[in-house]
Protein backbone atom coordinates (compact mmCIF):
# COMPACT_ATOMS: atom_id res chain seq x y z
CA UNK A 1 0.00 0.00 0.00
CA UNK A 2 1.06 3.58 -0.70
CA UNK A 3 0.20 6.44 1.64
CA UNK A 4 -0.16 9.94 0.20
CA UNK A 5 -0.84 13.14 2.08
CA UNK A 6 -1.35 15.92 -0.49
CA UNK A 7 -1.34 19.55 0.63
CA UNK A 8 -3.92 20.84 -1.86
CA UNK A 9 -7.23 19.68 -3.27
CA UNK A 10 -6.00 19.60 -6.90
CA UNK A 11 -3.15 17.34 -5.83
CA UNK A 12 -5.63 15.08 -4.07
CA UNK A 13 -7.83 14.91 -7.17
CA UNK A 14 -4.82 14.15 -9.32
CA UNK A 15 -3.75 11.35 -6.99
CA UNK A 16 -7.23 9.86 -6.87
CA UNK A 17 -7.70 10.13 -10.62
CA UNK A 18 -4.34 8.68 -11.57
CA UNK A 19 -4.02 5.98 -8.91
CA UNK A 20 -4.03 2.42 -10.16
CA UNK A 21 -5.88 -0.28 -8.24
CA UNK A 22 -7.95 0.26 -5.16
CA UNK A 23 -7.75 3.83 -3.95
CA UNK A 24 -9.38 5.18 -0.81
CA UNK A 25 -9.69 8.64 0.71
CA UNK A 26 -8.56 8.81 4.33
CA UNK A 27 -10.32 11.48 6.36
CA UNK A 28 -10.81 10.54 10.02
CA UNK A 29 -9.96 6.92 9.38
CA UNK A 30 -12.35 5.65 12.03
CA UNK A 31 -14.09 3.42 9.49
CA UNK A 32 -11.40 3.00 6.84
CA UNK A 33 -8.64 1.78 9.15
CA UNK A 34 -11.01 -0.63 10.92
CA UNK A 35 -11.96 -2.12 7.54
CA UNK A 36 -8.31 -2.32 6.49
CA UNK A 37 -7.28 -4.06 9.68
CA UNK A 38 -10.22 -6.42 9.53
CA UNK A 39 -9.09 -7.51 6.06
CA UNK A 40 -12.34 -6.29 4.45
CA UNK A 41 -10.46 -3.94 2.11
CA UNK A 42 -6.89 -3.98 0.85
CA UNK A 43 -6.15 -0.52 -0.59
CA UNK A 44 -3.30 0.03 -3.01
CA UNK A 45 -3.31 3.77 -2.35
CA UNK A 46 -4.68 5.77 0.56
CA UNK A 47 -5.01 9.54 0.09
CA UNK A 48 -5.03 11.36 3.41
CA UNK A 49 -6.84 14.70 3.04
CA UNK A 50 -6.08 15.99 6.52
CA UNK A 51 -2.99 17.95 5.43
CA UNK A 52 -5.13 20.10 3.13
CA UNK A 53 -5.77 23.25 5.17
CA UNK A 54 -9.07 24.18 3.47
CA UNK A 55 -10.51 20.87 4.46
CA UNK A 56 -10.50 21.91 8.13
CA UNK A 57 -12.32 25.21 7.72
CA UNK A 58 -15.82 25.95 9.00
CA UNK A 59 -16.96 29.07 7.12
CA UNK A 60 -20.13 31.12 7.55
CA UNK A 61 -21.40 33.18 4.64
CA UNK A 62 -24.65 34.46 3.20
CA UNK A 63 -25.00 31.09 1.54
CA UNK A 64 -24.92 29.27 4.86
CA UNK A 65 -22.21 27.36 6.66
CA UNK A 66 -19.59 25.30 4.88
CA UNK A 67 -17.76 22.56 6.77
CA UNK A 68 -14.49 21.28 5.34
CA UNK A 69 -14.42 17.55 4.70
CA UNK A 70 -11.58 16.82 7.13
CA UNK A 71 -13.18 18.75 10.00
CA UNK A 72 -13.47 16.39 12.93
CA UNK A 73 -16.87 16.04 14.53
CA UNK A 74 -15.23 17.01 17.81
CA UNK A 75 -14.15 20.32 16.27
CA UNK A 76 -17.73 20.92 15.10
CA UNK A 77 -18.89 20.57 18.69
CA UNK A 78 -16.56 23.37 19.71
CA UNK A 79 -17.78 25.77 17.01
CA UNK A 80 -20.35 28.02 18.66
CA UNK A 81 -21.76 29.57 15.47
CA UNK A 82 -22.33 26.17 13.93
CA UNK A 83 -23.83 24.79 17.12
CA UNK A 84 -26.25 27.69 17.43
CA UNK A 85 -27.41 27.45 13.83
CA UNK A 86 -27.57 23.66 13.45
CA UNK A 87 -27.79 22.06 16.90
CA UNK A 88 -29.33 18.88 15.46
CA UNK A 89 -26.56 18.38 12.93
CA UNK A 90 -23.91 18.96 15.57
CA UNK A 91 -25.52 16.64 18.10
CA UNK A 92 -25.75 13.95 15.44
CA UNK A 93 -22.10 14.40 14.53
CA UNK A 94 -21.12 14.40 18.19
CA UNK A 95 -22.92 11.12 18.86
CA UNK A 96 -20.50 9.20 16.62
CA UNK A 97 -18.23 7.12 18.82
CA UNK A 98 -16.22 8.17 21.83
CA UNK A 99 -14.17 11.30 22.49
CA UNK A 100 -11.28 9.42 20.90
CA UNK A 101 -13.32 8.85 17.74
CA UNK A 102 -14.69 12.41 17.85
CA UNK A 103 -11.14 13.71 17.57
CA UNK A 104 -10.84 12.03 14.17
CA UNK A 105 -14.16 11.17 12.58
CA UNK A 106 -15.72 13.48 10.00
CA UNK A 107 -19.20 14.00 8.59
CA UNK A 108 -17.80 13.64 5.10
CA UNK A 109 -16.44 10.26 6.05
CA UNK A 110 -19.73 9.37 7.69
CA UNK A 111 -21.50 10.25 4.41
CA UNK A 112 -19.03 8.49 2.10
CA UNK A 113 -18.90 5.37 4.25
CA UNK A 114 -22.58 5.12 3.33
CA UNK A 115 -23.75 3.09 6.30
CA UNK A 116 -27.56 3.07 6.62
CA UNK A 117 -27.07 3.74 10.34
CA UNK A 118 -24.69 6.73 9.97
CA UNK A 119 -25.62 9.24 12.66
CA UNK A 120 -24.94 12.48 10.84
CA UNK A 121 -26.75 11.60 7.62
CA UNK A 122 -30.41 11.88 8.72
CA UNK A 123 -29.58 15.19 10.39
CA UNK A 124 -27.91 16.47 7.21
CA UNK A 125 -30.84 15.35 5.07
CA UNK A 126 -33.27 17.08 7.42
CA UNK A 127 -31.08 20.17 7.24
CA UNK A 128 -31.19 20.18 3.46
CA UNK A 129 -27.42 20.01 3.28
CA UNK A 130 -25.42 19.63 0.09
CA UNK A 131 -22.02 18.13 -0.53
CA UNK A 132 -19.41 19.95 -2.56
CA UNK A 133 -17.64 17.46 -4.78
CA UNK A 134 -14.41 18.13 -6.64
CA UNK A 135 -13.13 15.89 -9.38
CA UNK A 136 -11.10 15.88 -12.56
CA UNK A 137 -13.98 17.65 -14.32
CA UNK A 138 -14.30 20.38 -11.72
CA UNK A 139 -16.84 21.03 -8.98
CA UNK A 140 -20.39 19.87 -8.52
CA UNK A 141 -22.95 19.99 -5.75
CA UNK A 142 -25.27 17.23 -4.68
CA UNK A 143 -28.00 17.03 -2.04
CA UNK A 144 -26.62 14.77 0.70
CA UNK A 145 -29.37 12.18 0.21
CA UNK A 146 -28.10 11.58 -3.32
CA UNK A 147 -24.54 10.74 -2.26
CA UNK A 148 -25.15 7.29 -0.79
CA UNK A 149 -26.77 4.86 -3.20
CA UNK A 150 -26.86 1.84 -0.90
CA UNK A 151 -24.94 0.28 1.97
CA UNK A 152 -21.25 1.12 1.39
CA UNK A 153 -21.94 2.61 -2.06
CA UNK A 154 -21.82 6.23 -3.24
CA UNK A 155 -22.39 8.09 -6.47
CA UNK A 156 -18.83 9.49 -6.45
CA UNK A 157 -16.95 8.90 -9.70
CA UNK A 158 -13.31 7.96 -10.11
CA UNK A 159 -11.10 10.86 -9.02
CA UNK A 160 -13.88 12.65 -7.15
CA UNK A 161 -13.92 13.51 -3.50
CA UNK A 162 -16.17 15.40 -1.13
CA UNK A 163 -14.41 18.59 -0.07
CA UNK A 164 -17.09 20.26 2.01
CA UNK A 165 -20.58 19.95 3.41
CA UNK A 166 -22.77 22.99 2.99
CA UNK A 167 -25.63 23.82 5.31
CA UNK A 168 -28.19 26.41 4.17
CA UNK A 169 -28.62 29.69 6.06
CA UNK A 170 -30.61 29.24 9.23
CA UNK A 171 -34.04 30.88 9.02
CA UNK A 172 -35.61 32.68 11.96
CA UNK A 173 -37.82 30.61 14.27
CA UNK A 174 -36.36 27.46 12.93
CA UNK A 175 -34.27 24.66 14.45
CA UNK A 176 -33.31 21.03 14.14
CA UNK A 177 -32.85 18.03 16.40
CA UNK A 178 -31.52 14.49 16.12
CA UNK A 179 -32.20 11.46 18.30
CA UNK A 180 -31.14 7.87 18.06
CA UNK A 181 -31.72 4.69 19.98
CA UNK A 182 -28.72 2.72 21.16
CA UNK A 183 -28.60 0.05 23.87
CA UNK A 184 -25.71 1.81 25.58
CA UNK A 185 -25.43 5.50 26.41
CA UNK A 186 -22.29 5.83 24.29
CA UNK A 187 -20.03 3.85 21.95
CA UNK A 188 -22.81 2.43 19.89
CA UNK A 189 -24.31 2.34 16.42
CA UNK A 190 -27.83 3.65 15.95
CA UNK A 191 -30.42 0.89 15.97
CA UNK A 192 -32.81 3.51 14.63
CA UNK A 193 -32.60 7.31 14.44
CA UNK A 194 -34.64 10.36 13.51
CA UNK A 195 -33.91 13.96 12.59
CA UNK A 196 -36.36 16.83 12.30
CA UNK A 197 -35.71 20.34 11.01
CA UNK A 198 -38.62 22.76 11.15
CA UNK A 199 -39.65 26.42 10.92
CA UNK A 200 -42.58 28.01 12.71
CA UNK A 201 -44.41 31.29 12.27
CA UNK A 202 -45.44 33.75 14.97
CA UNK A 203 -48.59 31.77 15.66
CA UNK A 204 -46.57 28.63 16.29
CA UNK A 205 -47.73 27.08 13.08
CA UNK A 206 -45.11 24.97 11.36
CA UNK A 207 -44.42 26.45 7.94
CA UNK A 208 -41.63 24.22 6.79
CA UNK A 209 -40.32 20.85 7.90
CA UNK A 210 -37.95 18.12 6.86
CA UNK A 211 -37.91 14.72 8.53
CA UNK A 212 -35.35 11.97 8.01
CA UNK A 213 -34.78 8.53 9.48
CA UNK A 214 -31.68 6.39 9.82
CA UNK A 215 -31.18 2.60 10.06
CA UNK A 216 -34.64 1.79 8.74
CA UNK A 217 -33.80 1.23 5.07
CA UNK A 218 -30.80 0.60 2.81
CA UNK A 219 -29.91 4.25 3.33
CA UNK A 220 -31.14 7.18 5.37
CA UNK A 221 -34.54 8.30 4.10
CA UNK A 222 -36.66 11.43 4.02
CA UNK A 223 -40.24 11.04 5.15
CA UNK A 224 -42.49 13.42 3.14
CA UNK A 225 -45.65 12.12 4.84
CA UNK A 226 -44.27 13.12 8.23
CA UNK A 227 -43.32 16.53 6.87
CA UNK A 228 -46.85 16.93 5.55
CA UNK A 229 -48.21 16.04 8.98
CA UNK A 230 -46.16 18.82 10.51
CA UNK A 231 -46.60 21.64 7.99
CA UNK A 232 -49.62 23.83 8.62
CA UNK A 233 -50.08 22.57 12.16
CA UNK A 234 -48.85 23.47 15.59
CA UNK A 235 -47.12 20.79 17.55
CA UNK A 236 -49.85 19.10 19.53
CA UNK A 237 -50.50 15.48 20.50
CA UNK A 238 -52.38 14.90 17.29
CA UNK A 239 -49.56 16.24 15.11
CA UNK A 240 -46.99 14.20 17.00
CA UNK A 241 -49.06 11.04 16.66
CA UNK A 242 -49.36 11.66 12.92
CA UNK A 243 -45.58 12.19 12.64
CA UNK A 244 -44.91 8.98 14.53
CA UNK A 245 -47.36 7.06 12.40
CA UNK A 246 -45.97 8.42 9.14
CA UNK A 247 -42.40 7.61 10.20
CA UNK A 248 -43.21 4.09 11.25
CA UNK A 249 -45.06 3.59 7.98
CA UNK A 250 -42.03 4.75 5.98
CA UNK A 251 -39.68 2.19 7.54
CA UNK A 252 -38.35 -0.70 5.49
CA UNK A 253 -35.79 -2.05 7.93
CA UNK A 254 -34.15 -5.44 8.29
CA UNK A 255 -33.65 -7.81 11.19
CA UNK A 256 -30.01 -7.89 12.19
CA UNK A 257 -27.79 -8.25 15.22
CA UNK A 258 -28.61 -4.70 16.27
CA UNK A 259 -32.37 -4.71 16.04
CA UNK A 260 -35.55 -6.18 14.64
CA UNK A 261 -37.92 -4.93 11.97
CA UNK A 262 -40.68 -4.58 14.52
CA UNK A 263 -38.61 -2.68 17.04
CA UNK A 264 -37.05 -0.32 14.51
CA UNK A 265 -40.39 0.45 12.91
CA UNK A 266 -42.01 1.28 16.19
CA UNK A 267 -39.18 3.24 17.77
CA UNK A 268 -38.61 5.27 14.59
CA UNK A 269 -41.99 6.83 15.30
CA UNK A 270 -41.18 7.45 18.95
CA UNK A 271 -37.87 9.13 18.12
CA UNK A 272 -39.34 11.24 15.30
CA UNK A 273 -41.99 12.49 17.69
CA UNK A 274 -39.41 13.38 20.30
CA UNK A 275 -37.06 14.98 17.77
CA UNK A 276 -39.95 17.09 16.44
CA UNK A 277 -40.71 18.20 19.99
CA UNK A 278 -37.06 19.10 20.60
CA UNK A 279 -36.72 21.02 17.34
CA UNK A 280 -39.98 22.84 18.04
CA UNK A 281 -38.81 23.89 21.49
CA UNK A 282 -35.49 25.07 20.07
CA UNK A 283 -37.27 27.07 17.40
CA UNK A 284 -39.15 28.88 20.14
CA UNK A 285 -42.42 27.05 19.67
CA UNK A 286 -44.99 27.37 22.43
CA UNK A 287 -47.98 25.17 22.98
Amino acid at each position, binding site marked *: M*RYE*APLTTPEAVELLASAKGRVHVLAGGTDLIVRMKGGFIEPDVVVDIKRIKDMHVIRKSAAGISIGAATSC*GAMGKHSVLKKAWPGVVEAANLIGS*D*QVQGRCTMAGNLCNASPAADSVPALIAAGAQVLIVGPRGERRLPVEKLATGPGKTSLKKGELVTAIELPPRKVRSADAYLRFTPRTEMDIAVVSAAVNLTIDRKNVITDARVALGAVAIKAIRVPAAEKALIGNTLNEETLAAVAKACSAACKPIDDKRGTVEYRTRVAGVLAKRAAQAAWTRAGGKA
Partner: protein
Amino acid sequence: MTNLVNTNINGDAVGFACEADETLLDALRNRVGLKGVKEGCGTGDCGACSVILDGTLVCSCLVLGMEVEGRTVETVEGLSNGAELHTLQSKFIEHAALQCGICTPGFLMAAKALLKNNPDPSEEEIRYALAGNLCRCTGYDKIVRAVQATAAELREA
Protein backbone atom coordinates in the same frame (compact mmCIF):
# COMPACT_ATOMS: atom_id res chain seq x y z
CA MET B 1 7.28 -0.38 1.39
CA THR B 2 8.88 0.76 4.61
CA ASN B 3 8.89 4.51 5.22
CA LEU B 4 10.65 6.72 7.72
CA VAL B 5 8.52 8.87 9.99
CA ASN B 6 9.94 11.75 11.98
CA THR B 7 7.83 12.92 14.84
CA ASN B 8 7.84 14.13 18.44
CA ILE B 9 6.86 11.68 21.12
CA ASN B 10 6.58 12.77 24.75
CA GLY B 11 8.78 15.78 24.00
CA ASP B 12 11.51 13.86 22.21
CA ALA B 13 12.33 13.86 18.51
CA VAL B 14 11.76 10.29 17.38
CA GLY B 15 12.19 8.62 14.02
CA PHE B 16 10.74 5.25 13.22
CA ALA B 17 10.40 3.01 10.20
CA CYS B 18 6.89 1.97 9.36
CA GLU B 19 4.81 0.26 6.68
CA ALA B 20 2.25 2.44 4.95
CA ASP B 21 -0.67 0.48 6.36
CA GLU B 22 0.77 0.10 9.85
CA THR B 23 -1.22 1.69 12.67
CA LEU B 24 0.27 4.19 15.07
CA LEU B 25 -0.52 1.66 17.81
CA ASP B 26 1.68 -0.99 16.22
CA ALA B 27 4.40 1.54 15.43
CA LEU B 28 4.46 2.85 19.01
CA ARG B 29 4.55 -0.63 20.50
CA ASN B 30 6.73 -2.50 18.07
CA ARG B 31 8.93 0.17 16.49
CA VAL B 32 9.34 2.72 19.26
CA GLY B 33 9.00 0.33 22.20
CA LEU B 34 6.29 2.24 24.02
CA LYS B 35 4.39 -0.77 25.29
CA GLY B 36 2.32 1.24 27.74
CA VAL B 37 0.04 1.79 24.77
CA LYS B 38 -2.23 -1.25 24.92
CA GLU B 39 -4.27 -3.08 22.32
CA GLY B 40 -7.62 -4.30 23.60
CA CYS B 41 -9.58 -4.45 20.37
CA GLY B 42 -7.84 -2.81 17.42
CA THR B 43 -11.12 -1.28 16.27
CA GLY B 44 -11.42 1.89 18.37
CA ASP B 45 -13.98 0.38 20.72
CA CYS B 46 -12.02 0.01 23.97
CA GLY B 47 -9.72 3.02 24.29
CA ALA B 48 -6.79 1.07 25.75
CA CYS B 49 -4.54 2.48 23.01
CA SER B 50 -5.53 6.12 23.65
CA VAL B 51 -2.82 8.70 23.01
CA ILE B 52 -2.93 12.46 22.59
CA LEU B 53 -2.09 13.56 19.04
CA ASP B 54 -1.43 17.29 18.59
CA GLY B 55 -3.50 17.92 21.71
CA THR B 56 -6.42 15.72 20.65
CA LEU B 57 -7.32 12.41 22.26
CA VAL B 58 -7.34 9.58 19.71
CA CYS B 59 -7.24 5.81 19.55
CA SER B 60 -3.81 5.02 18.16
CA CYS B 61 -5.28 1.90 16.51
CA LEU B 62 -7.32 4.24 14.27
CA VAL B 63 -4.34 6.33 13.16
CA LEU B 64 -1.75 5.29 10.60
CA GLY B 65 1.84 5.58 11.74
CA MET B 66 2.58 7.66 8.62
CA GLU B 67 0.08 10.29 9.72
CA VAL B 68 2.18 11.48 12.65
CA GLU B 69 5.03 12.84 10.52
CA GLY B 70 5.90 16.21 12.04
CA ARG B 71 3.24 15.93 14.75
CA THR B 72 3.38 15.54 18.52
CA VAL B 73 2.29 12.39 20.27
CA GLU B 74 1.78 11.98 24.04
CA THR B 75 1.60 8.54 25.62
CA VAL B 76 1.31 7.27 29.18
CA GLU B 77 5.11 6.99 29.30
CA GLY B 78 5.35 10.76 29.15
CA LEU B 79 2.83 11.49 31.86
CA SER B 80 5.07 11.70 34.90
CA ASN B 81 7.71 14.34 35.34
CA GLY B 82 10.77 12.26 36.10
CA ALA B 83 10.21 10.53 39.41
CA GLU B 84 7.25 12.76 40.17
CA LEU B 85 3.97 11.14 39.22
CA HIS B 86 1.25 13.14 37.51
CA THR B 87 -1.63 13.81 39.92
CA LEU B 88 -3.84 11.51 37.86
CA GLN B 89 -1.35 8.70 38.29
CA SER B 90 -1.12 9.05 42.05
CA LYS B 91 -4.88 9.45 42.44
CA PHE B 92 -5.52 6.35 40.38
CA ILE B 93 -3.32 4.37 42.74
CA GLU B 94 -4.74 5.96 45.90
CA HIS B 95 -8.35 5.42 44.87
CA ALA B 96 -7.77 1.88 43.60
CA ALA B 97 -8.97 3.05 40.20
CA LEU B 98 -7.21 0.09 38.66
CA GLN B 99 -7.26 -3.63 39.25
CA CYS B 100 -5.70 -5.50 36.37
CA GLY B 101 -4.41 -2.20 34.98
CA ILE B 102 -4.55 -3.00 31.25
CA CYS B 103 -7.03 -0.18 30.61
CA THR B 104 -5.25 2.27 32.91
CA PRO B 105 -2.90 3.95 30.39
CA GLY B 106 -5.86 4.73 28.14
CA PHE B 107 -7.95 6.05 31.00
CA LEU B 108 -5.11 8.28 32.16
CA MET B 109 -4.75 9.82 28.72
CA ALA B 110 -8.51 10.29 28.34
CA ALA B 111 -8.75 11.85 31.77
CA LYS B 112 -5.83 14.14 31.02
CA ALA B 113 -7.53 15.31 27.82
CA LEU B 114 -10.78 15.86 29.70
CA LEU B 115 -9.26 17.92 32.51
CA LYS B 116 -7.34 20.08 30.08
CA ASN B 117 -10.59 21.16 28.45
CA ASN B 118 -12.78 21.04 31.53
CA PRO B 119 -11.03 21.52 34.88
CA ASP B 120 -14.22 21.13 36.90
CA PRO B 121 -16.27 18.38 35.28
CA SER B 122 -19.47 17.01 36.78
CA GLU B 123 -19.77 13.28 37.43
CA GLU B 124 -21.86 12.96 34.28
CA GLU B 125 -19.30 14.84 32.20
CA ILE B 126 -16.56 12.56 33.51
CA ARG B 127 -18.61 9.47 32.72
CA TYR B 128 -19.31 10.57 29.16
CA ALA B 129 -15.74 11.73 28.57
CA LEU B 130 -14.45 8.33 29.65
CA ALA B 131 -17.10 6.34 27.80
CA GLY B 132 -14.59 5.48 25.08
CA ASN B 133 -12.46 3.58 27.57
CA LEU B 134 -13.63 0.16 28.63
CA CYS B 135 -12.79 -1.20 32.07
CA ARG B 136 -14.03 -4.63 33.00
CA CYS B 137 -12.64 -4.82 36.56
CA THR B 138 -13.78 -1.80 38.52
CA GLY B 139 -17.32 -0.95 37.44
CA TYR B 140 -15.84 2.57 36.92
CA ASP B 141 -16.83 3.82 40.40
CA LYS B 142 -13.30 4.25 41.68
CA ILE B 143 -12.06 5.58 38.34
CA VAL B 144 -14.63 8.38 38.40
CA ARG B 145 -13.69 9.17 42.00
CA ALA B 146 -9.99 9.29 41.13
CA VAL B 147 -10.68 11.75 38.31
CA GLN B 148 -12.86 13.86 40.61
CA ALA B 149 -10.11 13.89 43.22
CA THR B 150 -7.51 14.84 40.61
CA ALA B 151 -9.67 17.65 39.26
CA ALA B 152 -10.15 19.02 42.77
CA GLU B 153 -6.44 18.88 43.53
CA LEU B 154 -5.39 20.43 40.23
CA ARG B 155 -7.87 23.26 40.70
CA GLU B 156 -6.32 24.07 44.06
CA ALA B 157 -2.77 23.90 42.74
